């Protein structure tokens, strides 16, 4: 537990000092902002898939709903930013609940197919519903006046991400988190211990969708332009890859995975085909050699050092 806290403290200090390190370069801040938004999404997906055992391969659809809710509320209704952000979360959570209702009756591959269909359908709807979403042309959103510069909005995003991390960690530690993991481990035993399995699965979908919706809202403001193409299947799969690479059922793992897979394309995209090759190779190697993700590398070393110290003290 202490290792996790240290890791998160380290990450937050790094994130807060980052703009100073890169001399407020707008490109570097843009990349870091994307990383943070993906990290929120990866944590939400990990809550559902890593901890709860319910796979979702259409998670970008929730990001899309959050982003479009913000854009539409801003452009059509003129709602202020402080209202849009939570509303995007709530509306996405409601969609997550509705998706969760039928989805809880499916498991394994069937759930994967259902969420895949959801992930394919939402961008398609956004594309065709031109009156509301602007269709292929997308929508432009201005940053809120309070955080109008890239740097200030980056800081705002960081703070929101840290709050979400705190909330998710709290949830996982308590009664709800235990029930989620229990459902992953044995639905029969969870039911026998009084966990309302179908309700809790739906709840997991809603919570995960809520935070992803917030991430979508931040995305819309941060990037300033959204189109259906931004939320295609690729994004869903990359976020799924993030949590597998970083570590399933690990919050710090989600952050690590989001970091790596946001950075790789920025570095490798100048060589065509490189990104996808590296990502694929990294995934395969991780699954083969580190089934608990890259984060286990960090945790493992710490643990081994501790036992080594113990042995030393015993010998001495």
């Amino acid at each position, binding site marked *: 537990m202490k290792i996790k806290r240290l890791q998160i403290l380290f990450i937050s200090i790094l994130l807060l000092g980052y703009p100073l390190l890169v001399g407020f370069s707008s490109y570097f801040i843009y990349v870091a902002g994307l990383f943070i938004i993906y990290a929120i999404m990866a944590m939400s997906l990990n809550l559902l898939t890593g901890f709860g055992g319910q796979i979702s391969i259409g998670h970008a659809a929730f990001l899309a709903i959050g982003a479009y809710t913000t854009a539409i509320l801003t452009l059509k209704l003129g709602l202020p930013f402080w209202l849009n952000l939570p509303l995007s979360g709530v509306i996405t959570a409601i969609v997550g609940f509705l998706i969760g209702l039928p989805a809880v009756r499916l498991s394994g591959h069937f759930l994967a197919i259902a969420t895949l269909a959801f992930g394919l359908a939402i961008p398609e709807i956004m594309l065709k519903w031109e009156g509301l979403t602007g269709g292929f042309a997308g929508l432009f959103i201005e940053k809120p006046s309070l955080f109008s510069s890239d740097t200030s909005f980056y800081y705002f995003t960081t703070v929101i991400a840290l709050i979400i991390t705190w909330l998710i960690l*709290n949830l996982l530690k308590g009664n709800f988190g235990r029930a989620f993991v229990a459902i992953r481990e044995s639905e029969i035993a969870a039911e026998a211990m*009084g966990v309302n399995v179908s309700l809790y699965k739906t709840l997991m979908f809603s919570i995960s969708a809520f935070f992803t919706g917030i991430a979508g809202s931040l995305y819309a403001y941060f990037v300033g332009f959204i189109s259906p193409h931004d939320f295609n299947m690729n994004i869903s799969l990359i976020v799924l890859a993030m949590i597998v690479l970083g570590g399933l059922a690990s919050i710090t793992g989600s952050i690590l995975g989001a970091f790596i897979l946001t950075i790789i394309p920025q570095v490798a995209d100048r060589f065509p085909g490189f990104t996808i090759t590296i990502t694929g190779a990294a995934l395969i190697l991780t699954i083969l050699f580190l089934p608990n993700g890259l984060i286990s590398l960090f945790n493992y070393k710490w643990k081994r050092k501790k036992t080594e110290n113990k042995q030393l003290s015993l010998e001495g």
Partner: protein
Amino acid sequence: MLLELKKVTVSFGGLTAVNNLDLQVDEGMIFAIIGPNGAGKTTILNCISRFYTPCSGQISFKGENLLTKKTHKVLASGISRSFQNVELFSKMTVLDNLLVGLHPSLKSSLLSNAFKTKKNKQEEEAAKEIAFEILELFDLKHHANEEVRNLPFGIQKMIDIGRAIISKPKLLLLDEPVAGMNIEETKKNAELITRLRDEFGITILMIEHDMSLVMNISDRIAVMDFGKKIAEGTVTEVQNNPKVIEAYLGEVQEDVGT
């Protein structure tokens, strides 16, 4: 009477797993159900814990109809169970496994969980205290923060029972509590089961193949064969029942001597 099954019949397709079964379990008893493999014993437990719904018949607990209850409501009404092949949450710690057993009694809301309110913290602390009491009873305190999958089978069985009793149920259903255990562990578990009844006032309905355990600690035994109850009574009554001997040893051949 704590638990009553009236004319319960369960069939899967063409197979009648339990046939017209009547069963009454009084409070404070250790009631054992024995019988050859496939006699329908586990099916009965699964009916009581509401994983199955019988085709016909009634099951009542404390005078209430149990069949109207959903599976996840059974624990709150006072019936808990362990599993034949331990259904533990294997990647969770021992402590967390026990805490899941308290799930219905933890009332703090999603929001108070997320924001870690004072009330939530207090509730968690109190729950942990109860869990440690159980660990103490089972002498498992030193394993509290270990993942269950790393522990030997005998200990996993104990944790399975611990998780079942942490909510202080009135009735505990044990599905082969000593299967796969050695003589030492069986003895320890027999002691534990009697203690659960004597100190915690938990009525026990168990299925077991280990006859030494059954004959030692049961107050009453029901014998099943092919979905039917063929005998019921105290230990000596059952032991001397010719039908039971037949089910276990095969037909008594009367012309052996000639």
